[in-house]
C-alpha cells in the first residue's frame, strides 16, 4: 500500500483514476479499524487533508461551505455554526471521543455509509448538499442521495466529496439531533433522530424529521412532518410524531439493539427532537 497526499482536487482525481483499488480518506477513523478487521488494503491511500478546499469552513452569501475532510471538532467549536445549526453540531459532536472528533469529518461520516452516522440525519433535515468531484468536473447532489444502503453510496469509482453546502436557516428555524446509546460517549447510535422546524409564532410552517439507525439508510418521516406542518405543538401532535416515527422505522436485530427497542425508541427520540427543535426555534432559531 502506498500513501499519497495530493494538494489539489485535480491531483487527487488523477491519483484515483490512475490507481485501480485506490481509496480516499480523511480522518481514517473508520478506515483503520476496517483494515485491521481484515478488509483488503487499498493500492493507494489518498489523504485528502492537504487539499485546502477540503479543509476550509466558509460562511458567505447566505450559505455555509464546509470542506468534506474538515475535522468535526472545527465545526463544533464554531459558535456561529453551532448557533445556527445546533442539531447538525450535536450530530457531528457525537462522533466518538475528542480524539475522534479531531479527525472525523462530515465527508467520512457520510461516505462510510452507515445508517447510524450521527451527522447525517440533521444534515438531511437542513437540506444540505454536497459537491462531488467526478471524473470530468464537479456535481452537486443532496446529502440524502449519497447513501444507498449499508456501506453503499451512489458515488462512482474515482469520485470523492469536496465540500458540503448548507443554506442559512430561515428566521424562526432550528434543529436538533438526539441519539440513544448504552454509554454516554464512545458509542454508535442505536437510534438517532433529527428534527428541523420553522415556526411562525406558535405555528409550525415547515418540518423535517429524519431517523438514523432504524433502517438500511436514514429515513425521513413524512407522516410526522405532515402532522407538524400547520400545527401548534401539543402532546397530541408529539404522540402522532412518535407513532409515525415508530411506523417508519424498519430496523434489524443486531449487537447494538433489537427491532422492538429501536422501533419503540425511534418514536421517543423523534418526539423529543421535535420538541427540542421547536423550543429552539421558538427562542428565535
Amino acid at each position, binding site marked *: *500500500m*502506498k*500513501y499519497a*497526499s495530493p494538494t489539489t482536487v485535480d491531483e487527487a482525481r488523477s491519483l484515483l483514476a490512475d490507481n485501480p483499488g485506490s481509496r480516499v480518506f480523511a*480522518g*481514517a*477513523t473508520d478506515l*483503520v*479499524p476496517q483494515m*485491521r478487521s481484515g478488509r483488503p*488494503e487499498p493500492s493507494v*491511500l489518498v*489523504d485528502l*487533508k492537504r487539499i485546502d478546499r477540503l479543509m476550509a469552513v466558509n460562511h458567505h452569501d447566505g450559505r455555509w461551505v464546509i470542506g468534506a475532510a474538515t*475535522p468535526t*471538532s472545527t465545526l463544533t467549536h464554531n459558535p456561529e455554526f453551532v448557533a445556527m445549526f445546533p442539531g447538525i453540531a450535536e450530530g457531528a459532536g457525537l462522533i*466518538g*471521543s*475528542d*480524539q*475522534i472528533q*479531531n*479527525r472525523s469529518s462530515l465527508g467520512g461520516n457520510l461516505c462510510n455509509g452507515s445508517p447510524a452516522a450521527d451527522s447525517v440525519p440533521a444534515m438531511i433535515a437542513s437540506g444540505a448538499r454536497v459537491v462531488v468531484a467526478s471524473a470530468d468536473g464537479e456535481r452537486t447532489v443532496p446529502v440524502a442521495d449519497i447513501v444507498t444502503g449499508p456501506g453503499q453510496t451512489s458515488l462512482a469509482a474515482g469520485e470523492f466529496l469536496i465540500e458540503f453546502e448548507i443554506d442559512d436557516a430561515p428566521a424562526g428555524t432550528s434543529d436538533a439531533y438526539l441519539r440513544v446509546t448504552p454509554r*454516554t*460517549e*464512545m458509542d454508535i447510535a442505536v437510534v438517532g433522530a433529527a428534527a428541523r422546524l420553522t415556526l411562525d409564532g406558535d405555528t409550525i410552517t415547515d418540518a423535517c424529521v429524519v431517523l438514523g439507525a432504524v433502517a438500511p439508510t436514514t429515513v425521513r418521516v413524512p407522516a410526522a412532518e405532515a402532522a407538524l406542518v400547520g400545527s401548534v405543538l401539543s402532546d397530541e401532535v408529539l404522540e402522532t410524531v412518535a407513532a409515525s416515527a415508530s411506523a417508519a422505522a424498519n430496523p434489524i436485530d443486531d449487537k447494538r439493539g433489537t427491532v422492538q427497542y429501536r422501533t419503540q425508541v425511534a418514536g421517543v427520540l423523534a418526539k423529543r427532537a421535535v420538541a427540542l427543535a421547536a423550543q429552539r426555534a421558538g427562542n428565535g432559531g
Partner: protein
Amino acid sequence: MSRTHVSCNINGEDVEFLTADASSLLDALRNELGLIGAKEGCGTGDCGSCSVLLDGRLVCSCLVMAPEAEGRDVVTIEGLAEGDHLHPLQKTFLEGAALQCGICTPGFLLAAKALLDANPNPTETEIRYGLAGNLCRCTGYDKIVKAVQEASVELRGA
C-alpha cells in the same frame, strides 16, 4: 512494501524517520523512534491509550497513518515534562493516586492537557466528557477526575 521518509517535529525536536506507508503513527513512534509511552490498547481508536497531540490536537495515534506526520508537530507523553520539571498534571496524578496499573496514564495525561488547554476551568461533567475517549479499567475514574481538577487549579494559579 512502500516506504516513506518523514520529517517532523516530535516533542520539540526535528526528527526524521523512514516508515512503511501502511504503518500507523503509533507503530512509527514505538518501533522507529523508541517512544514507547503511547500504548496500543485496541488499535481502533476506542481506548485512547495511544493519544498524542498532532499540531496541538488530541488524536489517537493508532488511527493516524505515519506518513501523515510529515511537517507536523507531535507531542507524546515523553514531551509533557520540561526536563526534570513535571507538568502539573503529572504531579497531581502522582500525588492523587490517579494511576494504578499505569497503562492508560500517558493517554489520560495528554487528553487532560488538551482539555485544560482548551478549557482551563472545566466542570466535573466537562472533565468526564473530555476524557471519555480514554478507557481506564483500574481506577473507576474518580481519582483521575480529581487530579485533573487539582491541576486545573494549579495551572490557573500559576
